[in-house]
């Protein structure tokens, strides 16, 4: 029996990924369970799901506390979530990250696989929904499930074009995944954020062109997060609280605000 934990954010499809993985195992005549963590799912907020694969009489019905594999759909999530919690000593991490395994900083010598799932998702799907790409990485890195089974599960989930582009995401990630050993460090340091910061909810951040800003305050009026202040009649964004919704970009009457990818800032 193998046990897998998936970490993602609301909107990236972690629960769907767990279902696809369980379906793929089922297609290989194994017994499997897909278990979403009960809770309110907010777009952008951390989400956890589980998959258990094995033989019928060994299947228990519980959450998974000591996984064999941890799959992380979001590149920034490990700054706020303890993704290695309970991971077995010989366990493996499958991460959405644009850097090679050797640059991932960890406290313990887990095996690490990385793939730029966000980049692949944007390229194949046009949206940063990383659930199918990360499954390609899981297949490549672990060998626990066949590539064909995952592709079949994806095709059963989405008919037509939507299925095809997701299969492309699986395949591209399968090709691009690298497996290796991480960099062992004494302490993993995340961004220092103030209490209640939502900075890690963003995939994109709005950037104001102060030259173009006319100080009309419409972005300030409509911002759901109260994270825009008017300074010298120009809009200034507090990135500690901006969730990256993009309403300011949409509502700015002079096009003074643009969305820029967080990953362009490097990790």
């Amino acid at each position, binding site marked *: 029996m193998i046990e897998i934990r998936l970490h993602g954010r609301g909107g990236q499809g972690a629960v769907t990924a767990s279902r696809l993985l369980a379906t793929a195992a089922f297609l290989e005549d194994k017994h499997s369970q897909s278990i979403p963590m009960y809770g309110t799912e907010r*777009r952008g907020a951390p989400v956890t799901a589980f998959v258990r694969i094995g033989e019928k009489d060994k299947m228990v019905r519980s959450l998974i506390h000591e996984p064999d594999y941890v799959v992380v759909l979001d590149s920034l999530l490990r700054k706020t979530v303890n993704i290695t919690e309970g991971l077995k000593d010989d366990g493996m991490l499958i991460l959405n990250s644009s850097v090679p395994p050797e640059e991932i900083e960890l406290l313990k010598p887990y095996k690490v696989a990385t793939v730029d799932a966000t980049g692949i998702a944007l390229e194949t799907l046009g949206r940063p929904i990383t659930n199918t790409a990360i499954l390609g990485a899981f297949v490549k890195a672990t060998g626990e499930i066949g590539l064909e089974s995952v592709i079949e599960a994806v095709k059963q989930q989405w008919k037509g074009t939507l299925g095809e582009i997701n299969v492309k995401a699986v395949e591209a990630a399968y090709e691009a995944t690298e497996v290796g050993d991480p960099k062992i460090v004494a302490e993993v340091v995340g961004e220092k954020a103030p209490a209640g910061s939502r900075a890690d909810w963003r995939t994109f951040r709005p950037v104001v062109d102060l030259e173009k800003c006319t100080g009309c305050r419409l972005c300030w009026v409509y911002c759901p997060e109260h994270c825009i202040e008017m300074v010298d009649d120009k809009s200034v964004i507090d990135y500690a609280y901006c969730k990256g*919704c*993009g309403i300011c970009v949409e509502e700015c009457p002079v096009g003074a605000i643009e969305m820029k990818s967080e990953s362009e800032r490097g990790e």
Partner: protein
Amino acid sequence: MVGEEIVTSGSTSCQGCGHAILARLAFKAFGRKTIFTLVPGCIWITLSRNIPLFSTGTVFEGGGALVSGITNGLAARGIEDMNVVAFYGDGGTADIGLQGLSGAAERNENVFWICADNQAYMNTGGQRSGATPKYAQTTTTPASYIRRGKRTKRKNLPFIVAAHDVAYVGTASIAYPSDLVGKIEYAKGLKGFKFLHVQSPCPTGWGFSPSDTIKVARLTVQSGIWPLFEITEGNDFRLTYKPRELKPVGEALGLQRRFRHLTDGESQEIQSRVNGQWKQLLEIDGKRLPY
């Protein structure tokens, strides 16, 4: 847009959440002399952590009783200058909370009830509510070849409440902040039961990009899907936004995944219903309602 900023940053509502915008605007209008009550729902999540005012919550069914108890308790202690606000969702207003709403309205309790309406039980996965519009797809009203999303129209909450003959009934939209804030500022001075029904588009549940929340809200108003009006004491009805011409409903519906399955015939049905309703509203604009 005056008024102190009372809501602080850092709520856990979704990216682009309409409730978060509504909360900021509403509390600017209410000001600090405000106590508010909550029942379960997205609006609880949005308001419960980052507003430095006294608030308390209860079960869905208890919303009307809780807010009534608070206003009567304050009155018994001679405190007259507080806004007592019930800030509930559509579930806590149109469905599970309707009985308590109706009782408080019948007793004409001195409270301000805001319905933050995202048109389904979004906090628990998007089940349909009494406020879900016809044909909308939710997790409990799926669309397929034979099922077409929700079977019946949404409840006409403002008119249901107005039939209770209360101090104030209004509708508002987060895309029209001056209208929204103005209605609260006017009605909060009235004694008795005040009701404001605010449409709050939900990117997660309605299926549109979080950046389009205001755009969707604006298009529903401009197309007549969400008319802005108020019914003041004595049941005088007044439209507060009258576009010379309505935009086609397709513009607003087309942005929302929950309406993706609509056939031309179904869109047409919505269009003619909206047209008919708009004509009726224009006819009674400025007149007294018949009860």
